[in-house]
């Protein structure tokens, strides 16, 4: 194990080195949103027959008459002070909107991710332990199929089966049935808040709403996760050091858990980070299918009504989450693999 100090230094280093990436995202979103599409002033003007004076006025107010670099500086300053602009559709500051909606997305993603990990990793390990067995073929089949089903289709299939045919799932809209009252908000995570409030019935209701969308999302990443786990475990099991462990007579539990599994988890960790990131993206699709009030559907609605500030805010938010995730993965990797600190 590395010392705590080393970990802190590492975190600091990684934070610093991710700053350029974050800055890059900022600049790119700025350029994409400000420069490429048509004149936003024309768009934001009251109507198609707005006069030139009104447009010019708007342009000045929005700072669009300034040189591009100055605009960028203003933008950076705004972002730095937490001013992401206002959403035209909701009329609220984007930051407020995002803050309200982020917990819904995070709750969904975390649930789905946990679900995926606890299903995929044991499956991958089981398949690797018995290559060419029934379970191995089964896992490989599921993996092959799993990557082919787009989230928006699998979500709809789940709705059809569990809501329409079986009738066990609630109406697939939103985080909570309209007849259930929301718990007092403490963490903004429904499941946690209901637990805090001690409202088990409410908890069940929220869980029921959550299960289909998170299953949809989990389905999407189970296949790649199981696949990499299997491949990695297979590789490690046939490695020289596992053979050494066998040759000196270690117990199979020790070989499989301490020697093989811990090593096999290293690549899985990397992929898990990428998968989490992919799920963040897939949020957009799943939230649309299940009318989930998260940041994805928020950004999507804004995008389709050409309301760019929320989209920018959303992309930035994703970038920040992405930096944090990478940091976490990196630190975990550093703890798990002693070779890293050398590099």
């Amino acid at each position, binding site marked *: 194990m590395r010392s705590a100090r080393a970990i802190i230094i590492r975190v600091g280093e990684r934070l610093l080195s991710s700053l350029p990436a974050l800055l890059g995202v900022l600049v790119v979103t700025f350029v994409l949103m400000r420069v490429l599409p048509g004149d936003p002033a024309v768009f934001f003007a009251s109507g198609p027959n707005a006069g030139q004076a009104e447009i010019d006025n708007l342009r000045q107010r929005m700072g669009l008459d300034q040189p591009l670099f100055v605009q960028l500086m203003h933008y950076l300053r705004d972002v730095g002070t937490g001013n992401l602009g206002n959403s035209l559709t909701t009329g609220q500051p984007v930051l407020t909107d995002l803050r309200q909606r982020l917990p819904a997305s995070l709750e969904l993603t975390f649930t789905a991710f946990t679900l995926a990990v606890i299903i995929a990793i044991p499956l991958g390990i089981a398949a690797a332990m018995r290559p060419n067995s029934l379970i191995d073929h089964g896992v490989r089949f599921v993996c092959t199929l799993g990557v082919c089903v787009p989230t928006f289709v699998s979500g709809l299939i789940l709705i059809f089966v569990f809501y329409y045919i079986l009738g066990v799932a609630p109406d697939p809209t939103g985080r909570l049935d309209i007849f259930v009252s929301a718990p007092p908000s403490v963490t903004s995570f429904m499941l946690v808040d209901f637990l805090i409030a001690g409202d088990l019935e409410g908890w069940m209701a929220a869980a029921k709403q959550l299960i289909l969308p998170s299953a949809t999302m989990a389905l999407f990443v189970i296949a790649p996760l199981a696949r990499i786990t299997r491949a990695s475990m297979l590789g490690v099991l046939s*490695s020289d*050091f596992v*053979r050494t462990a066998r*040759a000196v007579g*270690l117990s199979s539990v020790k070989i499989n858990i*301490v020697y093989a599994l*811990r*090593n096999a988890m290293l690549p899985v960790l990397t992929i898990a980070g990428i998968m989490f990131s992919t799920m963040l993206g897939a949020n957009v699709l799943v939230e649309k299918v299940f009318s989930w009030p998260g940041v994805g559907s928020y950004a999507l609605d804004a995008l389709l009504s050409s309301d760019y500030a929320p989209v920018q805010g959303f992309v930035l938010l994703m970038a920040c989450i992405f930096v944090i995730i990478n940091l976490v993965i990196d630190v975990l990797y550093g703890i798990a693999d002693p*070779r890293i600190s*050398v590099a």
Partner: protein
Amino acid sequence: MTGALLSIEDLHVSFATRRNTVDALRGVTLAVNPGETLGVVGESGSGKSVTALAAMHLLDRAGRVSSGRIVFQGEDITHLSASALRAVRGSRMSMIFQNPRAALNPIRTVGLQIADAIRAHRRVSQAAATERALDLLRLVLIRDPETRLNAYPHELSGGMCQRVIIAMAIACEPDLLIADEPTTGLDVSTQKAIMDLIAGIAAERAMGVIFITHDLGLAAKYCGRVVVMKDGRVVEQAAPNKLFNAPRDPYTQRLVAASPTKVSRIEDLVVEEGVATLSRGPVFEQAAARRSAVVPLPVGERVRVRGLRRLWSDGRTSIRAAQAGERYNTIGASAPHPNPLPNGERERAEFGAISARPTYGSSPLLRVTGLTKRFGASTAVDGVSFAINAGESVGLVGESGSGKSTISRIVCRLLDQTEGEIRFDGTAIDAEPARTFNRSALRKDIQIVFQDAHDSLNPRFSAFDCIAHPLRKLMGIRGRAVLTERVFDCARRVGLPLELLDRFPHQLSGGQKARVGIARGIATGPRLLVLDEPTAALDVSVQAVILQLLVRLRQEENLSYLFVSHDLNVVRMLCDRTIVLRNGRIVEQGRSSDLFANPADPYTRDLLAAIPEFNPTAAVEAKVAEPAIALGAKRQPRARQVPSPGGEG
């Protein structure tokens, strides 16, 4: 064999591949007695490792014992349950492997790994196990064991990793240790240290050892009895003295002859049998190729090289002639090669290689002065100066990290030096950066043959294309007929059967690939050929043939060699002069005969001392008497058969 520690009786092992099953062992019978060290030698594919893995039940999933028995301490362990097996492995019978770095868990400290091995069989606390691990580290002579206990494998050298593995293997005092090429890939000095360690521990504990190696010298030095394996069978077994001095089996004879020793000469390396085939080399090699080729093409299958088809049918007769000659055309045979020397001269040329004609006095072909190469902060080559005369063969020897490969690449203008001057035939070639040297007129005069024959052939080029490439590019030969003729010519000169020219690298054997690489190297008629360990990846019997080919080519083509190798015996045989490198500096250089007889520098002496004695008794005598004669006399069967290797023509 009742008292045997481990006896293997008529063991058959087969591997299921996706295509079919391959028999790896076809009836192996051997036994090792308590406290005895049994050597198992053989070339790649002989089944020596499979035997060991089968005994340990460590075959991978595809492998299966189809018949035979494995009896350990009187108990039949051929079909042992997993739990019973676990009680045997490590505590009564243990195994160490080659490539020690990979054989340790990379993310667990070595102390914990040794403790794991102890606690697998002993009910002791973690603290006690760690204490014992420390003792074991001391026992395997690891410096500073307290700190090493908490080290990860990547923080240790290869030799130290192997010591740790030995510590793990002997942690529970097994009665039998199987060592599968434990020193392959390690430097000679490390090799000696590790082998001495194993031998010492074995002697101290009266532990039986099965020592698997391809190196006859090691087997001779450390084993009480040696088993020779070939094609999954035991062909001969005896005490090393008897086995290596008077091998009975023809294969053992070839193997023994082909293994370079301190006193052997190039011409001794290939055993001739009977009169019909003077040289067994190519025939032997082709047989190996037939066995190992992944997708064997029947000889004479349609030629897929562009435009070759027509020429093939046109040139049928010449090809057939070449094929007829093929069997004879390693060294010593009077194979039809393009520029046969007059009879009297050939006599001298054939084997007088070593002392033939260094032309001192005249300006050297290559002069390297103050050569330095730095990679970042580390200095790989540090102020090296040497010269090679026209027609001379110079050996560059050293352990890994000595900078020998770096020098070879700089001389060959594939890498830029940091400092220093390189003059080729009076021209300063150091001025031309490696990037643009491809345009130099001298490019065709300095060519190189690479270490790994497989790795040095473009997988998408046929053998023909490989050889044709420098001809096209550097000689500007475009005409198909001319090109084909030149490629055929090169192939003939290196003894590559013409029908192999349309094969791709993966369809050729190791020796054939080496020949293609050499043919490419000589295609442009270079004056200096850099040979970067050209035989390091080959089995000894193939190496022997290739070495002879190199000697012959140097005579015929009037080449100068810069021969890079870690194998001192090979360098001694092949090179007029030898340069010994250490950490990027020259520690000693001089005429090979002098340097090897009387090494001046202690490092050279250590290196020479570390080479495993191939034949202890003979070598001792050899030091007193004239070397070559002494051994020649010992190896009478062969020596009598072939009085004068060059005489047949």
